[in-house]
């Protein structure tokens, strides 16, 4: 019995500590232990505090702007979380997202209809992910290095394709722009897409056998291989999926801005990884939830928006964001120790 051992408690979503006896008190206790509950409480506290501090905060316009701000990036967070769970990481998400915009934009300017152009861009991003997956699983390099290289290469391609200037896509047909700018009823389409992606992947990650293999692989790759799971294939696919979702995000951004910006998404990887980690994903793999990661995204976004409303300098915003990340990870570290 060595108490010094640092054990990490994972939320395998499909096994939520079931059958430990019923009772509302028990349920409450379990809820309180969950990472998500803590995040929700913090976000609610921020909401309450901000609604007193700024009359603009709790307005429909501000809420809508905030949701729009994190919705598209949230799609990338989904991909990143799944990749982190499988034990990988991707630093290239920002530049791959930008590359999707540039590819779709260039094709459109050369007469391809925007839907086909988008499909090609998403496929190209998936191919980039597959290439990274190849270097990681077949060549045996580390995700960090491979994606760092691809981050730089993809950014270079963006600048090369556009000459460094944003592409104005003024002739985008309205039905395409509708994806990024339209609303159904009062709800922006962007948010509908975002919610659909999140709900779908959250469900799959919790319930399907395919995604369970992602958890096994990330938790202990060797044990997964010794359970007959083709771990390289799993890692290859999660790497590809993450880049493909960057492609989707890039296309939606293009529809929203009506332009393709080669310098878009610089520093995005840090935001995305931070959100996933604040939401409970572990950098060593094997744990994390989509729901948690999205709450992490929301938290970061609420903080940014609050700071802006309070007229805090943008320079401070980075410092505060970084500190939140550090605090979240530290708290988590101690909570895990105590549980162990």
């Amino acid at each position, binding site marked *: *019995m*060595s*108490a*010094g*051992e640092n*054990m*990490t*408690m*994972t939320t*395998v979503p*499909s*096994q*939520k*500590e*079931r*059958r*430990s006896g019923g009772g509302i008190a028990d349920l409450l206790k379990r809820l309180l232990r969950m990472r998500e509950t803590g995040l929700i409480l913090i976000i609610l506290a921020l909401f309450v505090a901000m609604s007193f501090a700024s009359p603009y905060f709790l307005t429909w316009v501000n809420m809508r702007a905030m949701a729009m701000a994190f919705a598209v990036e949230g799609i990338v967070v989904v991909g990143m979380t799944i990749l982190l769970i499988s034990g990988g990481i991707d630093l290239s998400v920002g530049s791959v997202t930008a590359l999707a915009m540039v590819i779709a934009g260039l094709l459109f300017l050369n007469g391809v209809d925007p839907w086909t152009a988008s499909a090609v861009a998403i496929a190209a991003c998936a191919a980039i992910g597959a290439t990274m997956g190849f270097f990681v699983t077949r060549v045996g390099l580390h995700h960090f290095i491979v994606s760092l290289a691809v981050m730089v290469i993809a950014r270079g391609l963006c600048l090369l394709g556009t000459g460094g200037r944003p592409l104005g896509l003024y002739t985008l047909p309205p039905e395409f722009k509708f994806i990024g700018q339209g609303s159904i009823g009062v709800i922006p389409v962007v948010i509908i897409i975002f919610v659909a992606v999140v709900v779908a992947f959250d469900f799959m990650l919790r*319930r*399907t*056998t*395919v995604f*369970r*293999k992602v*958890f*096994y692989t990330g*938790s*202990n790759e*060797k*044990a*997964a*291989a*010794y*359970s*007959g*799971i*083709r771990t390289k294939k799993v890692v290859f696919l999660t790497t590809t999926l993450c880049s493909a979702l960057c492609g989707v995000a890039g296309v939606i951004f293009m529809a929203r801005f009506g332009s393709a910006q080669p310098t878009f998404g610089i520093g995005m990887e840090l935001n995305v990884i931070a959100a996933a980690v604040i939401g409970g994903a572990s950098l060593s793999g*094997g*744990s994390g939830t989509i729901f948690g990661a999205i709450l992490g995204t929301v938290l970061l976004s609420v903080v940014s928006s609050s700071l802006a409303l309070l007229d805090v300098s943008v320079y401070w915003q980075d410092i505060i964001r970084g500190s939140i990340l550090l605090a979240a990870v530290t708290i988590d570290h101690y909570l895990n120790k105590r549980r*162990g």
Partner: protein
Amino acid sequence: MSEGVENDLILKITKLTKSFGSIRALREIDFELRRGEIHALAGENGAGKSTLMNIIDGILSPDSGEIRLDGKPVSMTSPAMAQKLGIGFVHQEIALCPDITVAENIFMAATSTSGTLLMDFRALERRAAEILHRLGDIDPAAPVRTLSISQQQLVEIAKALTLDCRVLILDEPTAALTEREAQILFDIMRNLAKQGISIIYISHRMVEIFENCDRVTVLRDGQYITTMNVAETTPGEVVSAMVGRVIDSLYPEKQSENERSEEIILDVRNPTERTRFSDVSFELRKGEILGLAGLIGAGRSEIVKGICRLEGEVTGDVTLFGRKLALRRYSDSIAEGIVYLSEDRKQDGLFLDMSIAANVSALNVRQVASKAGLIDDGREAELAERLGSRLNLKCGHVGQPVSALSGGNQQKVAIAKMLSVNPKVIFLDEPTRGVDVGAKAEIHRILRDLARNGVGIIIISSELPELIGVCDRVLVVREGCIAGEVAGDEMTERNIMYLASVAEVRKEAS
């Protein structure tokens, strides 16, 4: 107690108590260590041995109680302080830096206390060689990565010896050693004891305790039970003290004469892997437990992993119940009902941070899922509960992470994982390593039951008494080939060791 006896004690512990949260890990433990004695500490996993040793080494601090070293009360606050006071601790898990040399590893602890700024690598290697000379043939300039596990273990011991220690704690040092290496270690231990060093020796193996130790102290459930002179007690008495009940027989009954069957479950013909083994043909009959013996590095695990297609490019035929199998990867083996229990459950057997239920279903998650591939939590929990109760698994609930379980119960989860796919043949690699006496007996009983019910059981073990006690027939592997087979009365440690090592003996003679 007279003055003379008091002076004779290097370490005296009285009424030591330690709790972790609500769990009382140690309750008023007393322990006395004499100068120059080898003192065995016995107890099941969770009995408190490690906690006690961690307190002596300053890793943990006690809630109450007293530790006297050389008659003076001390309070150890860190391993570094324990080292200064002359306490060396060789942990069960090897904790060396793989990329630096043996010499540097050995003096790692010593450098932090030497007070010099620059490293003198030559001197380091020379001094390392002096120490290693006593322990066996290890090159001090070799990176640790290139050594075998047993050599690494010896490096760990060398590391403790550099510190001029007066008390040396060895936590299951033979778990990864071959019989011969273990004997070398015992010689070293006796030598050190003669030089006045006191040794606390933790082991599950009664034979080792009875052959090498002077006294034995037994802990159970965090309490001190008894201290006995080894010469005046029996293994049976020690085991009874450990488990708190009399164990009539350590091993289950073997296959009886009329249970014997000629029906062949598994027939392996000429499996060959370029560099590791060749032509290792054997067959497994219904109802029997087959053992694979051999020295570490002889290729036992490699053969078994090869047959299961876990690693290597293997040729040769595998026939299961008369049907030749086309196996390409391990998932094919699992689908055919051939499974492998790995020798290191923490490294590659279990998902420690995941739930018991998720571990049990890992070999085939599909069986607890709907046709569409959706996992049914209820069915998954039910599977784990059913197999858990069959194996007498002790846990709160199947949603608990496996890391919360004791070694024996973790191993039961690993076995439950194998059973989840209703296997026809199970290869078990060191199935009871690091498992306490009680759980060990249970695992053996389970394996016998499985064999009786027609499941093919093949066990790899480095512990000869286990192979002899459990198996009906033992194949001995030497240098990637089957050197021979023993069964019935021929199954003795001597015969097996002879077959396992005769080639080496010849080499030495020529």
